[in-house]
């Protein structure tokens, strides 16, 4: 019996699959377990298949697996799509009323899936319906747990005085979760708490679901006893923890990091961040006494008791970036969040911000491209585009987070970079990060200070104006000039997308042009020098190894999990996780990797873009690549076996494809 559980629930979009997975995850969290959750869904509102996998363990888990221990379903599509993922000895919960459904009558199933399954079953002489499939799976050694959903629901209905079945149907999810708990012989109390907490705004619904859960739990335990071989046990956890996804972590980082203006145009998978911010647009502040000693306080003539962030749905992404830049000019920490298509529309705005040295953060959630691509699926294919975004040359910082926790702290950090170096910063996130759920330690809101760089007060401006006058783009040693903001007395400046002089007026004069180009580009050198190593990249594993993995962004979790497993087999690797992507941490990378005999690049894109970047900047050639581009994130298994394949067979290009 493994300590770890891989649980999956699936069902049509809009039927509550997500919230039941959240309940399950929360319950496990209450039980002191670590959770890693992965969410998959179509670009559709209702009816297409969606599913959620949860990996649960007393030890830390940072990725999902390709196999499922217990699959909870209530529709045929989920059974057909995922049945084969269940391990021998694993179990499937299903609604026996689905038995007769023919594969070909499920309209949401892609033809390939049906075709392949039918072939397989026919070979075994089985029917091409759910029944045939279940037989096939049972033959393979999977345990089947039919749950009479309708019957149980009717029972629940009686108890809560609700006879309309269509209203009760919504509780099917709870039934599936509770069945799972019963089979796993796990304490119901955690589930009850999780249900109550999830429906905290709707006490009545919460209680109804608790009743449904109890009834189901009893029924299942009565029916199947403790016959299922996989059990779930409490972990022991002493620290305070949260369960959170990437979108929310970024949003919280922005609130803590002092962002007070956020624009967005709806797009998956970025929009949830903005919606969370909007829902929390007014928030509490810490003790005002501390604030009054803040050097900034003197100029603010109002003692705040709440903070707030204006969240603005713009007419398009062009407006979104430019509104954020306009707000930044007025002195706000401003940002916008988007994904591929929206990012493509922001080029001009980003270039203008670069030219005018405006600090602004663009949180860019990569998704399946090109074009509209796979709007709700994962990819990491915008690396190069992000680095080279917009025509002309100007300094921009690109920074990539590797997990949910990093999302939070990095969101604060990237705005510090933006203001310190007066540049646009692109914070690279991706769909896998945005939509995964992970257990994290309670966020430490005092871990990162706020650094507004060379931002001036009116008092300072007064001083400057006494001594020769203020120039927004004054040439300086390090390229950074003092910054005033719109509305400040004594701080008047001009901005233009044209090349300009120190005050900000258009200038085509070639000597000034050269100096201005150098002034701006110098700031990147400064950032390169100043940003500490541990913000540039994370190193993991055996630093003396001559086997190194290089990667960036969300593959981190699967890589770390795979490294742990490989270590147990005596294979120890080093792992260079790049975070600062531009300016590229070339010395750190070179020093770290120069002695490596084998470097394996792990990336969720076709061209292994990071390996090109590495070679461009360090000359190091990455001979081995593990890549994936089918829209589904790397699993633990893919990295684990992928690395093994490289080590054993010497494969140069391992393309992995798992995930439904």
């Amino acid at each position: 019996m493994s300590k770890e559980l891989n649980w999956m629930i699936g069902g049509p979009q809009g039927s509550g699959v997500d919230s039941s997975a959240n309940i399950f995850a929360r319950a496990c969290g209450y039980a002191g377990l670590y959770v890693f959750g992965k969410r998959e869904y179509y670009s559709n509102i209702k009816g297409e298949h969606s599913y959620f996998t949860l990996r649960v363990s007393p030890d830390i888990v940072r990725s999902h697996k390709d196999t499922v221990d217990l699959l909870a379903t209530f529709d045929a599509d989920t059974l057909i799509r995922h049945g084969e993922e269940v391990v021998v000895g694993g179990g499937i919960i299903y609604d026996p009323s689905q038995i007769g459904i023919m594969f070909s009558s499920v309209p949401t199933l892609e033809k390939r899936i049906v075709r392949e399954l039918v072939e397989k079953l026919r070979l075994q002489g089985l029917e091409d319906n759910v029944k045939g499939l279940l037989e096939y799976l049972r033959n393979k050694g999977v345990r089947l747990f039919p749950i009479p959903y309708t019957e149980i629901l009717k029972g629940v209905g009686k108890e809560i005085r609700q006879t309309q079945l269509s209203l009760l149907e919504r509780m099917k999810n709870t039934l599936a979760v509770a069945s799972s708990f019963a089979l796993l012989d796990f304490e119901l109390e955690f589930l009850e708490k999780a249900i109550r907490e999830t429906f905290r705004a709707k006490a009545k619904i919460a209680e109804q679901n608790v009743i449904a859960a109890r009834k189901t739990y009893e029924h299942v335990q009565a029916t199947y006893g403790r016959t299922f071989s996989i059990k779930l046990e409490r972990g022991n956890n002493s620290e305070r923890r949260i369960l959170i996804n990437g979108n929310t972590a970024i949003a919280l980082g922005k609130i803590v990091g002092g962002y007070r203006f956020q624009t967005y145009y709806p797009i998956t998978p970025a929009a949830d961040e903005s919606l969370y911010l909007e829902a929390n647009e007014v928030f509490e502040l810490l003790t005002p006494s501390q604030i009054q000693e803040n050097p900034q306080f003197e100029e603010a003539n109002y003692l705040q008791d709440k903070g707030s962030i204006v969240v603005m749905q713009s007419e398009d992404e062009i407006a979104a970036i430019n509104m954020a830049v306009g707000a930044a000019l007025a002195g706000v920490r401003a940002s916008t969040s988007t994904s591929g298509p929206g990012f493509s529309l922001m080029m001009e705005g980003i270039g203008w911000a670069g030219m005018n040295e405006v600090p602004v953060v663009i949180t860019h959630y990569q998704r399946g491209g090109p074009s509209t691509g796979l709007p709700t699926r994962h990819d990491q294919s915008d690396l190069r585009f992000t680095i080279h975004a917009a025509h002309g040359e100007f300094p921009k910082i690109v920074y990539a987070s590797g997990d949910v926790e990093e999302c939070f702290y990095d969101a604060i950090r990237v705005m510090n970079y933006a203001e310190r170096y007066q540049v646009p910063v692109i914070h690279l996130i991706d769909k896998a990060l945005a939509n995964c759920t992970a257990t994290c330690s309670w966020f430490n809101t005092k871990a990162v200070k706020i650094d507004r760089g060379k931002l001036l007060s009116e008092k300072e401006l007064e001083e400057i104006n006494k001594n020769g006058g203020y120039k927004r783009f004054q040439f300086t040693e390090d390229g950074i000039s003092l910054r005033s903001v719109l509305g400040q007395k004594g701080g008047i400046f001009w901005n233009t997308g044209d090349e300009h002089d120190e005050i900000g007026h258009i200038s085509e004069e070639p000597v000034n042009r050269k100096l201005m180009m150098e002034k701006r580009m110098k700031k990147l050198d400064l950032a390169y020098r100043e940003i500490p190593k541990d913000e540039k990249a994370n190193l993991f594993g055996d630093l003396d190894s001559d086997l190194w993995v290089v990667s960036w962004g969300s593959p981190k979790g699967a890589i770390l999990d795979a490294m742990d497993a490989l270590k147990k087999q005596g294979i120890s690797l080093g792992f260079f996780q790049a975070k600062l992507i531009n300016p590229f941490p070339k010395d750190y990378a070179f020093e770290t990797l120069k002695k490596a005999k084998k470097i394996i690049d792990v990336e969720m894109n076709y061209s292994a873009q990071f390996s090109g970047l590495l070679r461009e900047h360090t000359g190091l050639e990455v001979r081995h690549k593990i890549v994936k581009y089918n829209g589904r994130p790397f699993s633990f298994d893919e990295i684990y076996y992928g690395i093994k394949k490289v080590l054993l067979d010497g494969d140069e290009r391992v393309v992995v494809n798992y995930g439904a």
Partner: protein
Amino acid sequence: MELKLTDYKTPIHNDWCPGCGDFGILSSIAIALTEMQIPPHKVAIFSGIGCSSKTPHYLNTYGIHTLHGRAIPFAFGAKIANPDLTVIVATGDGDQLGIGVGHFVHAGRRNFDFTLIVYDNGVYGLTKGQASPTLKLGIRTKSLPKPNLNEALNPIVLALASGYTFIARGYAYDTKHLKELIKQGIEHKGSAFIDVLQPCPTYNDINTKEWYSGEDRLNELGKPMPRVYKLEETGYDPEIRDPQDQDEIKKKILEVILKSYEWGGKIPIGVFYRNRHVSTYEERIASRIPDYYVNPPAKQILYDKDYLPIADITRMLKELEV
């Protein structure tokens, strides 16, 4: 200390063509600001790209020369971040009604407090005289190899359909009149649009100063009969008085539209429409964020004396706690 006209001007070399209508608009803005005595540092002027969009460089206020067609989003961001600012967008017809017409439309819907001045010369000046969206179909200016293939927009109707609550038209060479419009636009709480007829002597030989002043049509006394006339002199009333009175509103709208279609022989300038009863975007925000006006984004304090963040997310974290 009283601010003088020179306080609003910069010593920057102005490179507009001799006789360009832009000069009159520039003066009108400067005079309006002087008369209103708005401190220069409280004013932020945004522009797009074009001859006209060089305007901010010639004014001694915060001057933000943005991207082609995009001045409004920049201006919106600044205004919402700091509602104390006086925000003006001064830009070209190609810029705002061509590539930027989407932002023009959506700004009206928001009714945020700013003043939009469009330099309406019928051409893309800075790229050498291509037709702008206000040039009529079939017209061929001297800069066009062939007659214009597109129908003109009616900026007044478009502004009305978009929701602007102050709509006016000025004439570049009548600075006395124009600066009054600009003052009214600035004073108006909400989105104010001023379409300014601006001769471009270099590329537009149709809508010239001479044409607007009717030098091609003399009366019996041999005096030119100007095409441009002032709405206010005809007793026209642009004001919506009772916002509840649907009939009044409809009647007014129809009047505005009728007036806006006048062209050729008689071209009205002045205030077409003013509705002071529509909430501004800032007010709408304040209905969600109670202390928005005193504690807007740009004025909030973010950290304590040790530069540590002061936002308290305990409430949110508790909801996520396991």
